[in-house]
């Protein structure tokens, strides 16, 4: 019944893409932007329609059978349930706001049609990812968003550094994707199906809890999730991905695509529950990523990189939640994070454009009076990010995660979560202070041009700001019924203690940051430029040196191999017969010297040998 609405929701962005692609830049910038924004807006409306039609129970829509060979029968089919609708709403809703903002952000850039074509394609792929009823279709969306991410990071193609960043993003996530693909192969071999519902039914029947196969399958799927969601060790691409236009960072590298890993694990929860060790690993990786990224965020000067590391850190929270079996909490945080991180990125985008593409905190500052809307966005988004108690959406979701970790009895993860909350407070304060307060660092920030457009500039920021407050948390319906029960469900004991702890962590972070950055500013700078402090700064600035490590371990040996083999060494072996023929030729050419005497000599030699053989052979003369 809701099939038309759902189909429409992802066909509209596709139509937008096709229209823009086939127009090949012949449409004006304004028309292109209108098409791009409108298609996603209509998709959002279609999603809203679908939500109103949602009967409350999952519904499958099979469009056609994709491939049918023997048992291998993946379909182009959609599975619409609460989770999918939730994700669709976030993708199309937040996506629409970001598209709208992009119309302001991208004004005057070349290739608007290209930009919107890819953005729409991204929305389409992302929708397929969350709607696909089987893993192969999910994989289609999964790869599609990767490609769009690649294209949009490299949108400013003239700068080859952007191209490199895009390349890196695609390859690193592709490595994760290969793990996911292998997981698919294994799952199909063992379970004989790729349909997600079927898998969740058959896996517990066929696999023992904690069996090797289940562990390997879960590990492989986790590999895919790590790549997409930028978790350690496949996280190095995300900070570089900030080379793309800021709306892209907001949509792809904050709100939607990077959370696909969380979605995937939540979708395949039954599989991970069969592999408790791997599930724990998910939590540990999440905690580690969260802390690593939070420390790295402390030492960044580029506002977008701070936000990128904070994204990584927040996804770490989601993984942590997944790791303790609190799938609903993870999705809850995913949704609120999408709101406030999109808000933060868009506000950052507003700052960047207003200050003529200046995004270094050292060269910004003192903007709070000149860019009030962006400042407001940053304040609201930032407080949601640090989970300011009661009034922000982030508080509710993060509190839920920490509570589940505590209820699961995993104190290590809980402590990591609390430490992460402190660090979040510190870097957020540093970001806001560095950008909006203090002295302006350059002419660009002294005389910014604030955005004035009501629709394309103010509206998205305001709506997202509203969603980042407790209102956003209220809107989340809760998906408990879809997931296996979380550890903290129905338990209330200790929740108050945890809330005190969490609020304490937030307050501690904010207080520490305030003290450090307002009172002891000079001391801090001195420390950061000498001895241990400087080394620490450098390590954090380079995000613990993962890039250098991978460069040395993988990239350079690879380049060495490519350069070594460039001239096709194996092929040289096949040239051996030719070489032998050539050497023989050179030798024989020498004998054909055109001198009759030597011909005669050779002939006589031959005759002599024959006669000598005859003479020496017994009875030869006869």
């Amino acid at each position: 019944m809701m099939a038309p609405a759902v189909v429409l929701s992802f066909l509209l962005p596709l139509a937008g893409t096709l229209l823009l692609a086939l127009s090949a830049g012949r449409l004006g910038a304004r028309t292109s932007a209108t098409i791009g924004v409108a298609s996603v807006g209509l998709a959002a409306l279609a999603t809203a329609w679908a939500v109103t039609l949602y009967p409350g129970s999952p519904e499958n829509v099979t469009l056609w059978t994709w491939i049918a060979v023997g048992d291998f029968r993946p379909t182009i089919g959609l599975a619409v349930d609460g989770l999918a609708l939730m994700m669709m709403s976030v993708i199309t809703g937040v996506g629409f706001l970001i598209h709208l903002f992009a119309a302001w952000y991208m004004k005057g850039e070349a290739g608007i049609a290209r930009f919107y074509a890819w953005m729409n394609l991204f929305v389409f792929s992302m929708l397929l990812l969350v709607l696909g009823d089987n893993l192969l279709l999910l994989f289609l969306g999964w790869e599609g968003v990767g490609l769009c991410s690649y294209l949009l990071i490299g949108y400013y193609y003239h700068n080859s550094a952007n191209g490199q960043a895009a390349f890196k993003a695609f390859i690193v996530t592709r490595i994760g994707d290969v793990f996911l693909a292998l997981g698919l192969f294994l799952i199909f071999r063992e379970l004989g199906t790729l349909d997600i519902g079927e898998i969740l039914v058959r896996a517990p029947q066929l696999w023992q809890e904690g069996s090797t196969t289940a562990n390997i399958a879960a590990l492989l799927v986790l590999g895919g999730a790590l790549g997409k969601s930028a978790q350690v060790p496949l996280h190095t691409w995300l900070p570089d991905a900030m080379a793309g236009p800021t709306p892209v960072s907001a949509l792809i590298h904050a709100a939607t695509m990077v959370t696909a890993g969380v979605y995937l694990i939540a979708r395949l929860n039954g599989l991970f529950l069969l592999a408790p060790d791997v599930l724990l690993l998910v939590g540990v990786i999440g905690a580690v990523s969260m802390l690593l990224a939070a420390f790295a965020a402390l030492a960044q000067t580029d506002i977008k990189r701070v936000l990128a590391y904070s994204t990584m850190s927040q996804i770490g929270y989601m993984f942590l939640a997944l790791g303790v079996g609190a799938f609903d909490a993870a999705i809850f945080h995913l949704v609120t994070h999408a709101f406030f991180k999109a808000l933060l990125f868009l506000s950052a985008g507003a700052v960047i454009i207003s200050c003529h593409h200046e995004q270094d905190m050292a060269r910004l500052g003192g903007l709070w009076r000149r860019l009030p809307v962006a400042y407001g966005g940053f304040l609201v988004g930032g407080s949601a990010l640090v989970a300011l108690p009661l009034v922000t959406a982030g508080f509710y979701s993060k509190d839920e995660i920490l509570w589940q970790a505590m209820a699961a009895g995993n104190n290590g993860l809980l402590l990591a979560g609390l430490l992460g909350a402190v660090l979040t407070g510190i870097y957020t304060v540093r970001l806001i202070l560095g950008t909006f307060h203090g002295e302006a660092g350059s002419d660009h920030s002294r005389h910014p041009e604030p955005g004035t457009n009501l629709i394309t500039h103010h509206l998205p920021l305001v709506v997202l700001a509203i969603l980042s407050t407790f209102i956003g948390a209220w809107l989340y319906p809760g998906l408990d019924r879809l997931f296996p029960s979380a550890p903290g469900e129905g338990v209330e004991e200790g929740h108050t203690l945890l809330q005190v702890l969490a609020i304490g962590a937030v307050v501690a972070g904010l207080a520490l940051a305030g003290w450090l950055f307002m009172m002891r500013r000079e001391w801090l700078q001195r420390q950061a430029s000498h001895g241990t402090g400087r080394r620490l700064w450098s390590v954090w600035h380079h995000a613990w040196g993962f890039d250098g490590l991978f460069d040395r371990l993988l990239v350079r040996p690879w380049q060495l191999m490519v350069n070594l083999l460039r001239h096709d060494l194996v092929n040289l072996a096949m040239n051996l017969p030719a070489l032998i023929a050539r050497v023989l030729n050179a030798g024989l050419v020498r004998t054909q010297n055109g001198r009759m005497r030597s011909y005669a000599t050779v002939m006589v030699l031959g005759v002599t040998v024959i006669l000598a053989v005859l003479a020496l052979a017994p009875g030869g003369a006869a």
Partner: protein
Amino acid sequence: MELAFYLSGLVAVLATIGVITGTSPIHAVVYLIVSLIAVALVFFALGAPFAGALEIIVYAGAIMVLFVFVVMMLNLRSDTRGDQPWLHPRHWLGPSLLALVLLGALVALLAQGSVDRVIEGELLTARSVALTLFGPWLMVVELSAILLLAALVTASHVGRRNNPVQNRNRGGNQ
């Protein structure tokens, strides 16, 4: 008769050595004539007067006269330009040794043979030769006629002073 055979054989060998080692063309030609006449004497000693006569008339007479004509026509002098390093053993030792080895092999083969034939010196007259020639060997005679004709045509074509090939080359260059 035996004495005549060995004597003229020796003369033939010595004269041939003179041919191949000489430097003056005209001397060499004369040596060759001597050698041919000595072989003709060997024929007589073996009892083949017809062959001997032909040898003198055709070989020593006609063919060698051709050589002499050519030598005179080209006005060849004692020419050692082409055989400059002739005196050095490095240049003649190899071929000579090779020829010697060949000779050794031939002699060894002949010595192994068990044909104990002795040539009595009985006469084979021109008549019997002619009868054979125009009897069973008639085809060979015809063939040699054709061969001679071909040689005649070739020689008269190649030997022309203004060879058409040369003219064409020159024309092409112009």
